[in-house]
């Protein structure tokens, strides 16, 4: 039987999580990002133009949102392959309302979040209760969702959407992209939950040592399920923002985001074996990825170089974090 006070102590967010190596790591990432920006802007003066920067950020925002959710699952030592399928299904669901009325947007968002919660519950249940490996559980839900989505649309998606989607996806407010502001709000809320709440502390404990977490009386199953629900729900919202950015709905909206979100998170210092990393780091990972992608275009290199670069960087990043004394990435 665990002593009550000591359990509470363990569950207290400890200040050292925002200092030491973590801070160094984030500074390292930031330094790397700045170095990137400097090199790219020397090579291509077009890069630092405000318009270009804002465009990059608008483009990166939906991926950033997915990464925030993916971080919760990765920190547990899990992973979620179903985020892309959730994004596309949320997008298709939105067209299902067949409305152009902006007042319906909250309803559409509500429905999408509900979808995300249901998928997250399924993923979490399979992983926590049935002990299915996260890879297979989320692969299975991906395929099932894909089938349901295509059955619903019979292969061709609708295109009726409120004008508001374009506004949240492409427009600016006070000079800043609206979807970037939404990402900022999301990141602050969920960053706070992860880094400053007892629940967040439990996530790190479960990810770092599932058995240890159980021993101190944490209901690990509940924590796992909650994280999968958060991840899917955020993915559904990101799907709607992506629809707004792209301007149209597609059966495959968000395709590739499942792997890109993992790549960005790993680049940002999250260990896929769980227990190590932060939201801030993961978002810096997104920025580094996007800056490099933009550099490839600005330097007039073939787009395919982006893919090669992405592959090299994710392996290099994972190796680097390990040599810096981290856990198995």
């Amino acid at each position, binding site marked *: 039987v665990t002593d009550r006070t000591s359990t509470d102590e363990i569950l207290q967010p400890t200040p050292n999580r925002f200092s030491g190596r973590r801070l160094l790591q984030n500074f390292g990432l930031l330094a790397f990002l700045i170095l990137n920006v400097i090199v790219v802007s020397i090579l291509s003066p077009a890069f630092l133009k405000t318009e270009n920067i804002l465009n990059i950020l608008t483009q990166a925002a939906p991926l950033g949102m997915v990464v925030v959710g993916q971080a919760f699952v990765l920190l547990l*030592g*899990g*992973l979620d392959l179903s985020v892309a399928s959730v994004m596309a299904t949320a997008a298709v669901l939105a067209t299902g309302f067949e409305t152009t009325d902006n007042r319906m947007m909250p309803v559409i968002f509500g429905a999408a979040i509900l979808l995300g919660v249901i998928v997250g519950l399924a993923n979490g249940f*399979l992983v926590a209760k*049935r*002990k*299915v*490996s*996260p*890879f*297979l*559980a989320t*692969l*299975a*839900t*991906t*395929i*099932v969702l*894909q*089938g*349901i989505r*295509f*059955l619903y649309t019979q292969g061709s998606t609708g295109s009726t959407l409120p004008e508001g989607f374009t506004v949240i996806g492409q427009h600016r407010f006070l000079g800043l992209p609206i979807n970037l502001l939404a990402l900022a709000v999301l990141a602050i809320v969920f960053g706070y939950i992860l880094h400053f709440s007892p629940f967040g502390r439990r996530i790190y404990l479960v990810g770092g040592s*599932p058995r240890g977490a159980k021993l101190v009386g944490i209901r690990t199953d509940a924590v796992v399920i909650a994280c999968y629900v958060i991840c899917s729900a955020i993915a559904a919202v990101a799907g709607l923002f992506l629809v707004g950015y792209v301007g149209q709905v597609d059966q495959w909206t968000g395709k590739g985001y499942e*792997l890109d979100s*993992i*790549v960005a998170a*790993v680049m940002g210092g999250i260990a*896929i*074996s769980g227990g190590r990393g932060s939201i801030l780091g993961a978002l810096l990972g997104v920025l580094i990825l996007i800056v490099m992608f933009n550099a490839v275009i600005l330097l007039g290199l*073939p787009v*395919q*170089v*982006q*893919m*090669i*670069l*992405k*592959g*090299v*960087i*994710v*392996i290099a990043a*994972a*190796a680097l974090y*390990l040599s810096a004394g981290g856990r*198995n*990435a």
Partner: protein
Amino acid sequence: VSLVVVIALLVLLIVVGTTLSDRFATSRNFLNVFQQAAGLGIVSLGQTLVVLTGGIDLSVGAMISLVSNFTSGWIDGDPSLVIPVLIGVVAMAAAIGCLNGALTYYLKIHPLIVTLGMASILQGTTLLYSLAPAGKVPPEFQVLAYGRVLGLSVGGLAMIALFVLVGVFLRYTRTGSAIYAVGGDPRGARLLGISVPRTLIITYGLCSTFAALTGIYLVSRMGTGDPWRGEGFELASITPVVVGGTALAGGKGGVLGTLLGVFLISLLNNVLNFLDVSTFYQWIIQGLIIITAVAINIDRGRKA
């Protein structure tokens, strides 16, 4: 136990298929299923080896695309180039696979990340070479997919031969037992004097090689390469492995299960085609099969 379930499901499918359509239980239809199973079968065979070590290879899809496009692009209809190009692409694939294994071991990076990164590199390279299907292969090349020996498709027979070879390799060679040992208990394996890096390098090398063979088979079937030919195979190749009872955590399972898994999936798609069921339902059913298979086997390994 799980193999019995898979066999029972196979029998059930055959019974259902037979009652559904006169054309189902014909040798012609079965030969078709057999022929179509070859592509998925060979790549899943390689995936089985990697999964047995407790790893995963997400680069097989990109490898198939790469091999598919380069084989047909380099041969470009010239029969005299067939043999050198085939040797070249298989050697290249084997080398890349060995690199996957080496990176996994020496850098201690999770194989998921290594092979995910590698997939991105390979797909990028393939698309740099050409964005559209490149080249073509001489008609003789299509013997692989459409040729018949004793009435059976050459590709299908090659798949069976490879499964038998790998089955023997796993059971009767030191490296074969090393693969199980590394997956089951890496530390114990080391104590037994097994070289973990050597085992991993060989395993990932074989996996990429088998992916390359699937790529070559698909070129033969289509008559041309395609820079996206392998898309989806990275995940599709895992389904038969898991359905066949090999645990993602490693150390348990084998190639017989995978072969049955491949036939189960191929036959299921065939039956659903007879039922005139859309691909959409096929996806749903495939997803449910994964969940069911895993729930039966209860894959307790919590590895990604």
